């Protein structure tokens, strides 16, 4: 069954954040379209900015000279003499890395707000935390290389913080005051760190996306081009410059800080270094605990019924979480493979049920079975819910809403007094269910109401539903189903008004349509269908029927 909404302070915080994102995201949806909405591409933009920083960094390294005096001079040469290429590249390097912090922070907050960090999604959340740490280490080591007054400040405060840990024999902060112990080897070390840490960061970014299928690591080209152009514009408007050569005998004050990378540094002047470390530790512990605040009561993982599985692999193709893989057949049937669910990765979204060609409510069986099903919300129960909800419809213009539990369609239908069936994800509804509803005259029209297109809770539910209805993805909606009686709306939980308007508009539209005359593949009534004997196994079914019911 779809999960009940959770309550409590964390849930309230999530909802408040969702409202905040909603206020930004919907206008961006209108301006950019769901496909180009930057808020729907935060992770992909993070990857894009990483590559931007990497490429610009490699280019800058051509001009960079290590050494106490030479480092600063080489950066100044880059900024002044070669401003039109290397100078702009330096600014791009800076601003892209700053924007990466913004993207990562927004990505983290958005995933938290949409509750995409609990349950089996803990893995992506936890692997994201070291990414945050390494991102900061990469940025901070980069500031040291310029060896200007900001570098002096960063070096001094960072080393004072590290000294508090007591892991070095001598206070390393003494290297950055007038004690004359700093040598050129320091820059060699910093260059090494500034290269090695981002490489490790990239490795962790790969680990971060291991447990999701079809991860978005490249934003749409148009969006990437627009973002790059805007960064170049910012670089030309406000070039990144140094803040004067280091003088170890003079405190770098005042100093223009990078508030994205160094927001905690001024705290060291107000708090003890131990307190700053304590704040950082508390931040990481709290964020690491979020997937279990509170623990997600997980629905049972999808289960494969081999008697109805022909190994077509559509469930594995469509699963957004890499929870299904195809393995060698174990039951002796004449198919090379069978689906296998990894329960530790399955979120019970039901997308696999919607992808299974055996998932057809037309099947005459005492207990409707399919190749892969949710134990807590099987296809049989879904069909019962549909027929029960449809039975409450009367009069002309009967609209049945198939609503995603994360979207606004369910609430709108309830407010509108329209029958609705709620699903964990609309992509759980197999296309034959739509055919079934209309051909059995259970409703005059169907409104499929999912999450906002740019914020699909189960990542791919909206895309798969659209493609199945457009008949570009199997299993697809049969051509005989009148498309004018099937509408989709992708709206967030806060867009109930838009859903209600769409519902009313659809009812008016349906009322103008001539009576539907669909030829049912089974002329028998639903009651007959429910009381009929079990269907033949996939092996006994004709190949055409097995693959595309």
């Amino acid at each position, binding site marked *: 069954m779809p999960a009940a909404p959770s309550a409590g302070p964390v849930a309230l915080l999530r909802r408040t954040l969702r409202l905040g994102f909603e206020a930004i995201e919907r206008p961006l949806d209108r301006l950019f379209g769901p496909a180009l909405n930057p808020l729907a591409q935060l992770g992909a933009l993070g990857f894009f900015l990483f590559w931007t920083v990497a490429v610009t960094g490699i280019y800058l390294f051509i001009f960079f000279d290590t050494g106490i005096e030479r480092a600063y001079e080489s950066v100044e040469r880059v900024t002044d003499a070669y401003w039109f290429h290397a100078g702009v590249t330096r600014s791009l390097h800076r601003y892209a890395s*700053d924007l990466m912090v913004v993207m990562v922070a927004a990505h983290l907050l958005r995933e938290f707000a949409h509750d995409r960090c609990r349950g089996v999604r803990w893995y992506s959340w936890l692997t994201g935390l070291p990414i945050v740490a390494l991102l900061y280490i990469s940025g901070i080591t980069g500031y040291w290389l310029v060896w200007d007054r900001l570098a002096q400040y960063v070096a001094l405060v960072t080393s004072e913080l590290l000294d508090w840990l007591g892991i070095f024999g001598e206070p390393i902060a003494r290297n950055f005051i007038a*004690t004359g112990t700093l040598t050129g080897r320091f820059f060699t070390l910093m260059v090494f760190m500034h290269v090695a840490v981002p490489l490790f960061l990239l490795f962790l970014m790969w680990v971060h996306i291991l447990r999701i299928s079809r991860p978005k690591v490249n934003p749409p080209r148009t969006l990437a081009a627009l973002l790059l152009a805007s960064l170049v*514009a910012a670089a030309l408007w*406000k070039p990144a410059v140094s803040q004067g050569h280091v003088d170890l005998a003079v405190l*770098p004050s005042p100093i223009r800080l990078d*508030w994205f990378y160094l927001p905690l540094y001024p705290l060291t002047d107000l708090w003890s270094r131990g307190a700053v470390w304590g704040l950082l530790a508390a931040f990481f512990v709290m964020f690491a605990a979020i997937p279990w605040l509170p623990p997600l009561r997980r629905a049972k993982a999808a289960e494969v019924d081999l008697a109805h599985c022909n190994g077509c692999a559509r469930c594995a193709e469509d699963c957004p979480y890499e929870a299904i893989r195809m393995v060698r057949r174990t039951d002796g049937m004449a198919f090379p493979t069978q689906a296998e669910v990894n329960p530790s990765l399955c979120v019970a979204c039901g997308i696999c049920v919607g992808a299974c060609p055996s998932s057809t409510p037309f099947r005459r069986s005492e207990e409707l079975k399919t190749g892969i099903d949710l134990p807590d919300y099987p296809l049989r129960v879904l069909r019962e819910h549909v027929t029960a909800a449809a039975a409450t419809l009367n009069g002309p213009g009967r609209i049945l809403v198939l609503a995603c539990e994360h979207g606004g369609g369910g609430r709108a239908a309830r407010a509108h007094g329209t029958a609705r069936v709620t699903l964990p994800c609309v992509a759980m509804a197999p296309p034959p269910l739509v055919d079934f509803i209309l051909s059995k005259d259970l409703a005059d029209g169907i409104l499929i109401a999912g999450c906002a297109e740019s914020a699909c809770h189960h990542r791919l539910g909206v895309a798969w539903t659209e493609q199945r209805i457009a008949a570009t993805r199997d299993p697809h909606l049969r051509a005989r189903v009148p498309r004018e009686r099937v509408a989709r709306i992708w709206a967030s939980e806060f867009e109930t008004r838009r859903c209600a308007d769409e519902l009313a508009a659809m009812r008016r539209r349906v009322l103008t349509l001539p009576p539907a005359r669909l030829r049912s593949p089974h002329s028998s009534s639903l009651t007959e269908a429910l009381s009929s004997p079990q269907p033949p196994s996939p092996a006994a079914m004709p190949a055409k029927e097995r693959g595309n019911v």
Partner: protein
Amino acid sequence: MITAGRRVLQFCVLALVAAAVAALGSGPAYRQIPDGTGVLMLTFVHAADRRTECRRLTAEEVAKLPPNMRRVQDCPRERRPLYIELDVDGRTIYRHSLPPTGIAGDGPSRVYEKFVLPAGRYAVDVRLRDTARADGFDHERREDVVLAADQILVIDFNPAAGGFVFR
């Protein structure tokens, strides 16, 4: 169909974000210490004498040791704490006993302290005890210094250079 106007609008929104990032990426300015002040920094790493003197082992004691570990003296590793005082214009602003570092207490003592003072002339007196003596000091330096605004005046200790060094 995406019009050129909409594309320009999209660019403007992203450019606005990039401009905000550029602005916040290099400002506003932060001042660590109040205007017109400087920093007097007391920092050095120095090992005090060992807590107990080395003792010559007797012939019997040496004989008891395994042949490959026989030595003439027994020198306990643990060091004494350093005792340090810093006066500015006759007022003691720092007085501390600095324990030796290391798990066995055999490492040097360390100090890294910053004092923010208004710019101006000061009579600085720094004293250090690093031996077994009960009172008095082994090293001392008294000097009139001029601290400029934003200056970092370091008081270091280097026995090879004769004791306290003002940089």
